């Protein structure tokens, strides 16, 4: 595991996701994919977290919640948008209550495609996030 030097802690927030990506994020933490071997822990407290994983599109209600979580996280921080809904809003972008992807509220660093995103794709995304995190730390 030479490419992983840090143990990033993640916080997961469910936007208006359908649960599909949520349980895949959760599945990453369980024995089959077990990202804990990289030192990745799902943590409830935004102050402890380095990576914010958002699944699902943003609607008028959770926009402020996402902003709050984002601003509570300490620098350096990275945002990972998991799933098609988080990237573009999927077909829900036509709905009256949906604003669009996560980038309408906070800057997103990495997008992970898939509906629902496969755990392998999420792990790939987290690995990509780590490189970014390292770059951001150096600054």
């Amino acid at each position: 595991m030479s490419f992983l030097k840090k143990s990033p802690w993640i916080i997961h927030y469910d936007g208006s996701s359908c649960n599909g990506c949520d349980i895949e994020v959760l599945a990453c933490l369980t024995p089959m994919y077990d990202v804990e071997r990289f030192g990745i822990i799902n943590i409830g407290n935004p102050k402890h977290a380095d990576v914010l994983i958002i699944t699902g599109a943003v609607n008028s209600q959770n926009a402020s919640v996402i902003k709050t979580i984002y601003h509570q996280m300490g620098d350096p921080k990275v945002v990972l948008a998991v799933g098609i809904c988080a990237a573009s809003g999927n077909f829900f972008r036509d709905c009256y209550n949906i604003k669009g992807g996560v980038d309408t509220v906070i800057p997103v660093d990495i997008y992970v495609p898939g509906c629902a995103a496969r755990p392998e794709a999420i792990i790939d995304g987290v690995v990509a996030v780590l490189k970014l995190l390292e770059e951001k730390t150096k600054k």
Partner: protein
Amino acid sequence: MASRTIIPFGPQHPVLPEPIHLDLVIEDEKVIEAVPSFGFVHRGLELLVGKKDFHQMVYIAERICGICSMIHGMGICYGIEHIMKIDVPERAKYLRVIWSEMSRIHSHLLWLGLAADAAGYESLFMHCWRIREKLLEIIEATTGGRVIFGVCKVGGTRRDIANSDIHGILITLKDIEKDYQNISKVFRDDYTINHRFSNVGFLSKKDAFELGAVGPTLRASGVSVDMRKTGYSAYRHLEFEALTENSEDCYGRCMVRVREIFQSFNLIYQAAEKLPNGPVDIKVTGNPEGEYFTRLEQPRGEVVYYIKGNGTQNLERFRARTPTFANIGPLVRMLSGCDLADVPVIVLSIDPCISCAER
């Protein structure tokens, strides 16, 4: 006279992965009243009927919820087929049963894992999810998706399970069942689970019925209602009983789910044995005109779809009343009078699926 405090519970909460929001009015650690409110996951997808045609609505209905996606897709297909008087091939009916029972097992295993986690029993949580992954592999090999199945379409199913593969699938399922047998013993006998779930979240038989609870929440209170008994799809050819428990608390709800997994395994074996040969879909022409209330049994309980077509390719109205929405009333009743520390367990005991409830 103690003072009253209002504690907001959610939307981002470490115990619950989903953004449920409750305002808990508490007095000395006792919850007096719980006030739920929605909107964090609300998308308003029922209005998409105006923009998408009814074939596309099947994909959208599947994405109401990623856990019960198979039965959501099946529900809208079933309703439209009934309106258009399409007779689905027998093989497709059995395949739908097989897949929806698989989705029930994976949903219940998921819930059991979360319940173990809420009780502070992390290794059990990991074991449940380990078994679940084996099942997901079968699901992916047969449907192509891990959580979003995408196999139901109006007029049948998109994919077929080859007869030669079924034997292998059954062997793997028997392995999973054996593995699960060990875990179910823990849920049945373990002190931690018993202690945490017993006498918590009491819902009497009368209350459960009058408040319109559905699914395991209702059956744990001793009311035997299971929509599969209406015999939709191929269920009329299969033998099973609606499982009930009489303990009327969280432990009962847990036990109903523990036993339902065995029942689902059994249903899959039965369906695989009876699986007839033939095509899996028929060609659909024309547009639906008419209305129908579809009622199916989801892992979380009874789901009702109201589908109304007006002869165009767009449906006029699609409404899904999901099981979690029906269980909100009973949940509020269960929460009043409980300890604050029990709130996560009680909320979990109805198997809340907020993205279902808010759509």
